[in-house]
C-alpha cells in the first residue's frame, strides 16, 4: 500500500516535471537571447545563463528576435529559418566553418536576417564551403562582418523569391579557392527569384571573383574596393535574365582577367567615380553587354584598358 502510493506520487511528479520542461521550449521563446564563450546550450540562453552556440540559441529565440554575444568566443555554424538578428557589438564573435557552410539562410519569404559583427572563417584542413549561403528570405543584412578562407563564395546569394542583399562594412578574402564559379560575393537567383543589391563599404581581396551577378538583379555598389581577384573584379552575366547595377565609387585593382565585365545582351553596368587599374583588361563588354559610363571614371594602367559602350553626361 505504502509502496503503491509512493509509486503513484513518483509518476505524478515525473509528469509534472515533463510538462514544465516542455512548456518553455514550445511556447516561451525569448525575443532576446545570449551566447557566451563559456555558455552551455542546456541553458535557457538568458543573460545570466547564456548558451554556447548560435545553433543552440536560435531554437530558444523567437522569430524576429535577437541573439546577442556576451563575450568573445567561437559560436559555431548555424542554419537560420526565420527572421533573426545575430549580433556582436565589439566582442569577437567567430564562426569556424572548415569544410562546411558558415551560415545558411533558408527563411520565409517575408523574413529578414541580420548578421552583425561576426567573423566567419573557413580555415582548416578543408576550407569552408560558403561563408554565408542565402537560399530563401526577404532580406539579408550583413553589417561589420568579415569572411575568409572558403572554397566556395564568401556570400552566395541564391534567392528563390524576390530578395534584398544589404552589406555594410564587410570584408571578404580568399574565397573561390576551389570552385571556378565562386568568389567574394556571388549573386545567382534561382527559379523565379530576383536580387536587389545594396552594397556599401565592402572590401574584398584575393578572391576568385570580387562580385559576380547573374540576373534578375538590380542594385548599387558604393564606396567599395576589390583587390586582386584571380578572375573578374565585377562581372554581370546576363544572357537572358537582366542585370542592371550601378557602381559608384568602386576601385578595382589587379584583376587577373577583367576589372569590370558586362557579359550578355541583358547585362548593364553603370559606372561613376570608379577606378580600374592594374588589371588584365579594365573594361570588357562581351556578347552585347553594356557598360554605361558617366564620364568620370579612371581606367588606366591595365594591360588593355577597354572602353565603355556609351558615355552618359552627368546631370
Amino acid at each position: 500500500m505504502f509502496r503503491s502510493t509512493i509509486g503513484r506520487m513518483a509518476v505524478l511528479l515525473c509528469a509534472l516535471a515533463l510538462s514544465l520542461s516542455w512548456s518553455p521550449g514550445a511556447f516561451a521563446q525569448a525575443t532576446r537571447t545570449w551566447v557566451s564563450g563559456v555558455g552551455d546550450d542546456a541553458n535557457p540562453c538568458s543573460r545570466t545563463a547564456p548558451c554556447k552556440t548560435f545553433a543552440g540559441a536560435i531554437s530558444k529565440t523567437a522569430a524576429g528576435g535577437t541573439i546577442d554575444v556576451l563575450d568573445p568566443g567561437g559560436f559555431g555554424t548555424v542554419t537560420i529559418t526565420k527572421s533573426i538578428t545575430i549580433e556582436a557589438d565589439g566582442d569577437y564573435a567567430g564562426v569556424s566553418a572548415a569544410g562546411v557552410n558558415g551560415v545558411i539562410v533558408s527563411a520565409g519569404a517575408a523574413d529578414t536576417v541580420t548578421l552583425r559583427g561576426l567573423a566567419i572563417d573557413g580555415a582548416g584542413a578543408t576550407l569552408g564551403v560558403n561563408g554565408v549561403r542565402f537560399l530563401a528570405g526577404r532580406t539579408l543584412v550583413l553589417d561589420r562582418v568579415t569572411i575568409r578562407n572558403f572554397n566556395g563564395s564568401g556570400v552566395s546569394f541564391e534567392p528563390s523569391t524576390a530578395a534584398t542583399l544589404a552589406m555594410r562594412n564587410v570584408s571578404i578574402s580568399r574565397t573561390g579557392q576551389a570552385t571556378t564559379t565562386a568568389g567574394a560575393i556571388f549573386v545567382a537567383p534561382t527559379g523565379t527569384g530576383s536580387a536587389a543589391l545594396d552594397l556599401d563599404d565592402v572590401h574584398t581581396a584575393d578572391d576568385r571573383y570580387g562580385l559576380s551577378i547573374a540576373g534578375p538583379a538590380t542594385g548599387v555598389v558604393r564606396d567599395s574596393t576589390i583587390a586582386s581577384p584571380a578572375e573578374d573584379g565585377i562581372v554581370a552575366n546576363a544572357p537572358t535574365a537582366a542585370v542592371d547595377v550601378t557602381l559608384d565609387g568602386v576601385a578595382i585593382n589587379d584583376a587577373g582577367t577583367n576589372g569590370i565585365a558586362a557579359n550578355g545582351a541583358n547585362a548593364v553596368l553603370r559606372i561613376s567615380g570608379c577606378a580600374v587599374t592594374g588589371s588584365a583588361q579594365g573594361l570588357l563588354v562581351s556578347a552585347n553587354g553594356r557598360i554605361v559610363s558617366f564620364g568620370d571614371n579612371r581606367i588606366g594602367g591595365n594591360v588593355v584598358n577597354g572602353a565603355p559602350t556609351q558615355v552618359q553626361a552627368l546631370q
Partner: protein
Amino acid sequence: MSRAIIHWRRVPALAVLTLAFAAPAHAQQALGTVLRACGALDANRQLAVQATGGAPAGSVLVASVAGRADVLGDVRIVDPTLATWDAIGARRTRAAEKLEVAQLATRATATLSAAQSYAVRIASSVPGTEVCFAIVAFADVASGPGALQSRAAAGGTSAAPSLTGGAAGDGTTQLLVAAFALAGDPAGFSAAQAGDVAASTCTATATLCLGTVSRTDPGTGALTLGATLGTAVAWSGALASLDRETLLRDGFE
C-alpha cells in the same frame, strides 16, 4: 515582251547569287600573318615592327601581345592607318611567371602591304621590357564591340594549353582566336585540333613566347581552342570570338 524584259532584269541578281555560291572559298578565312615578332621596348616604350605581310581593305586584324613584366599596362597598337583597336580579351598571371597576354582587333580601312610599320606601345612598362607581338588578318568577319566576344581566359602549366568558351557556338560565331603567352621555349607549337591554324614566335632567349591559334567557321559545337607543345611550360591565354560579317553570304554556304 514585258516578260522578257523582266527576265533580263533578273540576270544581275542571278549573277550575284552565282558569285555568292562561289564565295565560300574566300569566306571567313585566315588571310595570313601581317607580322609576328618579339623584342624589347625602346626608350619610347614601344616595339616597332615591319610587316611581313599585307591585308586587304575591309579585313579584320587581330593583334596579340604577350609579356612577362611586373607591370604591362596601357597597351596600344599603332598601325599605318592609325585605326582604333578594340580590346577583346586579356589575362594576367600573378605567379612567378608573371605572364600577361592581350588581344585587340580592328578593321583595316585601307589596303595594307608588307614592309609597312606597326608598333605596340606599352605606356605602363619600362624600356627594355621584352614583349611578343603578332597580327593576323581575317576575311569576312565583323569587328566592333558588338561582334567581338571574350570567351575565356585562363592559365596554368601544361604541354596542352586549352581554352573553352564555356558556351556552345551560337551560329553567328565565325572565328575563334586564342593567344597564349608562354614562359619559355615550348619546343614546338601546333594546333591541338586538325584544321586550326597555329603559329608562334619567341624572344631570342626563349624566355617568352607568343602562340596563336585560330579556327574559322567553328559551327555550333563547344568553343574550345588549344595547342600542343613539345614540353610543358607555364602559360596564360585568352580566347575571343568574332561574329560573321554578313548573314546573306553565310546563308549560301
